[in-house]
């Protein structure tokens, strides 16, 4: 039965849309509790360290004049970059999902590629190409062009599954086209957009490598200073708690701005695409400029290194080994994060209670913490309670999954918000069991989101450095750690292939994403 036919049948049976329990609420709550517990381990570590040190010393660390500077820097950077990334992300998503832009699949791949660029490559590229780009405005430019994909991905996934019928209805009721877009489409992508903005702002809090090179002081750079030169773990943890506090403010703000949320209707036809006509070349140029700036600069840096560098006396770890390790760890982590995000997203979108909201919100905190802190925290617990797991592949995968789980959650939330609950109700009245409903109705509806979530976590995890340096299995290097080892020694020529391979490896999920998006749209058109 097609979706449209199911809807009609539901209407004829007089089935009302009532939010009630689906998929075993207990199952969802238990799964969410486990996920939230894992995500809160870093916070437990910070609190343990803070308790050990005592209030007076913590206060003396926090009450320095530098803290005010850091706070001001953090606030103004977050505001500017989040707005910039939101505007660019939504505009780019609209271009690829709602217009007849040529080469859409290629654009989809290119537009997510900035996520595959490690922050140290980004920083170095900009610093070499344009030494004038540094400080506050330099950081705004670099971070906006580097993080807009975090808004682009969830919004594109949401637009892909959004209902064009609402747009048409708005138009028939007399609204002008632009207004129709603003009211209906923006409303539908609101959860995804706000989720993406939340993720961008949280990631900015934890960002370190780029700011170090661009010479912009934030809490994160200060935390690293405390670890690296002060041997002052308690002070670094105190500053990390400030990041947690700021993260909590952002989380609360997002909840307030998003509001209660409106249940969505179904997905019938594929979306109507706006015809660009004469604007088409202009849009292509604009997108090319965006891609050029965000990927071109780091690519230029890599080419420069190939040309500049010579041999290295460092041990030649095989490029293939490092690539395999990166791909294996990141795929496993992406699968776990995506799998774990489904129950939490379902719980919070379908049944909005205080408990579900609290569980969901608590998992985002980890995104505000630098990777080094998360790794130290997980290492602290595992070396004491699971020593065989310490510095093992499993632990590294778990660390990535915990660090980047919020990314998967944001995408899944946007996707679940689009999947109409009513279809599941109807299936239940027609006699389908819970498992059958989940497999045949919910999962296919969530598929674009699942793929986007997987791709997103994979991309971001592949460039992770600081946590990996702490927890990687001894003797195993990832593309990022090997790259770092070579560049610390001026062996740029040896490092360049690793950076290039990293970007190539990251193109795989990007291509996968573009391919599947097209296929899903085609299948819906046929049904």
């Amino acid at each position, binding site marked *: 039965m097609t979706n449209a036919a199911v809807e009609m049948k539901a209407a004829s049976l007089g089935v009302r849309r009532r939010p009630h329990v689906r998929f075993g609420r207990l199952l969802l709550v238990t799964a969410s509790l486990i996920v939230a517990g894992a995500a809160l381990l870093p916070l437990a570590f910070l609190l343990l360290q803070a308790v050990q040190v005592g209030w007076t010393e913590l206060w003396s660390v926090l009450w320095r004049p*530098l803290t005010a500077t850091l706070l001001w820097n953090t606030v103004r950077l977050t505001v500017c970059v989040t707005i910039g990334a939101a505007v660019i992300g939504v505009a780019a998503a609209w271009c690829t999902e709602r217009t007849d832009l040529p080469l859409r699949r290629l654009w989809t791949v290119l537009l997510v590629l900035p996520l595959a660029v490690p922050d140290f490559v980004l920083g170095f590229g900009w610093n070499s190409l344009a030494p004038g780009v540094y400080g506050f405005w330099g950081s705004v430019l670099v971070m906006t062009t580097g993080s807009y994909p975090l808004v682009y991905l969830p919004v594109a996934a949401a637009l892909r599954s959004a209902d064009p019928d609402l747009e048409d209805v708005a138009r028939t009721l007399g609204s002008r086209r632009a207004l129709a877009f603003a009211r209906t489409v923006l409303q539908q992508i609101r959860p995804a957009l706000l989720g993406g903005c939340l993720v961008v702002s949280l990631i900015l809090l934890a960002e370190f490598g780029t700011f170090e090179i661009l010479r912009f002081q934030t809490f994160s750079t200060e935390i690293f200073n405390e670890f690296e030169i002060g041997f002052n773990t308690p002070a670094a943890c105190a500053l990390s708690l400030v990041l947690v506090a700021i993260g909590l403010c952002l989380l609360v703000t997002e909840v307030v701005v998003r509001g209660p949320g409106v249940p969505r209707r179904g997905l019938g036809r594929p979306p109507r695409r706006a015809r660009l006509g004469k604007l088409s070349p202009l849009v292509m140029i604009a997108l090319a400029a965006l891609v050029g700036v965000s990927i071109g600069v780091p690519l230029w840096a890599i080419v420069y290194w190939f040309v500049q560098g010579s041999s290295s006396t460092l041990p030649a770890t095989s490029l293939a080994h490092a690539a395999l390790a990166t791909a294996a760890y990141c795929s*496993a982590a992406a699968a776990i994060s995506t799998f774990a995000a489904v129950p939490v997203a379902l719980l919070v979108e379908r049944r909005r209670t205080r408990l579900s909201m609290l569980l969901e919100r608590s998992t985002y905190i980890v995104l505000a913490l630098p990777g080094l802190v998360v790794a130290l925290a997980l290492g602290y617990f595992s070396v004491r309670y699971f020593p065989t797991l310490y510095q093992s592949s499993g632990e590294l995968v778990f660390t990535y999954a915990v660090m980047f789980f919020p990314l998967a959650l944001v995408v899944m939330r946007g996707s679940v918000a689009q999947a109409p609950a009513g279809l599941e109700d109807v299936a239940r009245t027609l006699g389908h069991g819970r498992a059958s409903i989940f497999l045949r109705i919910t999962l296919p509806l969530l598929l674009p989101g699942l793929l986007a979530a997987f791709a997103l976590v994979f991309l971001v995890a592949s460039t992770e450095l600081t946590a990996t340096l702490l927890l990687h299995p*001894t003797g195993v290097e990832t593309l990022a750690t090997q790259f770092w080892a070579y560049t610390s020694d001026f062996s740029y020529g040896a490092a360049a292939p690793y950076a290039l391979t990293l970007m190539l490896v990251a193109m795989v999920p990007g291509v996968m994403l573009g391919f599947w998006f097209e296929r899903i749209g085609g299948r819906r058109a046929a049904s």
Partner: protein
Amino acid sequence: MLATSVAAVSAATATSGSSPSLLVYSGQHPGTIEALAQAFEQATGIKVDVRTSLDATLATQLVVEGSHSPADVFLAENSPALEDLQQRNLLAPVAASTLAKVPKRDSSAQGDWVGIAAHASLLVYNTADVQPSQLPTSILGLADPQWKGKLALAPSETDFQPIVVAVAAKYGKAKALAWLSALRTNAVGHVYSNNTAIVSQVNAGQGDLAVIDPYYWYALRDQFGAGATHTAVQFLAPGDPGYVVDVSGAAILRSSKHQAEAQRFLAFMVSRQGQAALAHDQTYEYPLVPGVAADPVLPPWSTLQPDPITAAQLGNGLEAVTLLQESGLL
């Protein structure tokens, strides 16, 4: 499929349980520790696994791991990390025969770590913009107004701390603070995160003068060739606090389960064979055991006349960090 690939990677790194092996946390340059580890394995058959990172990251990791740490040996690029771990009672005493091989002042005063190599800080300058005659002979000269906007500085670099401590020891804290504030003014726009960045930037013309650990200048010249090197290095005046010896040392963790093998490794590091391995392969550091020849590209150790401050006096660098924070550089 994912599970099998993760398992395959794990299996590839699993060590055999029968032969003993050491786990070394190394903050030294990767080439240096690799040379030592390979030579030791060949000589004794004991496998050495190495984890490379920065001194302080590893020290922090060791502190967080505590008595559950899987590490056996800690090799640091500079002494502050070792002094810090020593203060926290995480190190086991080094065998007296090992300590006897290097000058006493270059090892731990308590005997918990042994120095194996050293380097002395010096000035690097851009040859196109600066003449050797213009270079200051005292580290205090970096604060001169003529260097405003031209000084490159990395306040968070571990190598800078011994200089700050030496300045404070010789001239007093107040003068050191004033000096640091002046450096802050001079280095506006050219504050970098580490020596690697400083050397690259001064070479590129961004900033004309800096004080660094010479390893990075030699490494840069090695990689890019003499033709692309637009910088040169020069020592400060003999005994000047900017002309400081930094000792690279090794220690054994108290929690190690391979104490005997670890002692053998440290003994190897200060043996003729170990020191010779250190002295070559572009490590650009001086072996501390008297009579072992260093890399010929370096000026001979006997010609160096650094400030007499010892590693014990440098401590864990906390004094330097406090001054740097007070001056606003950190």
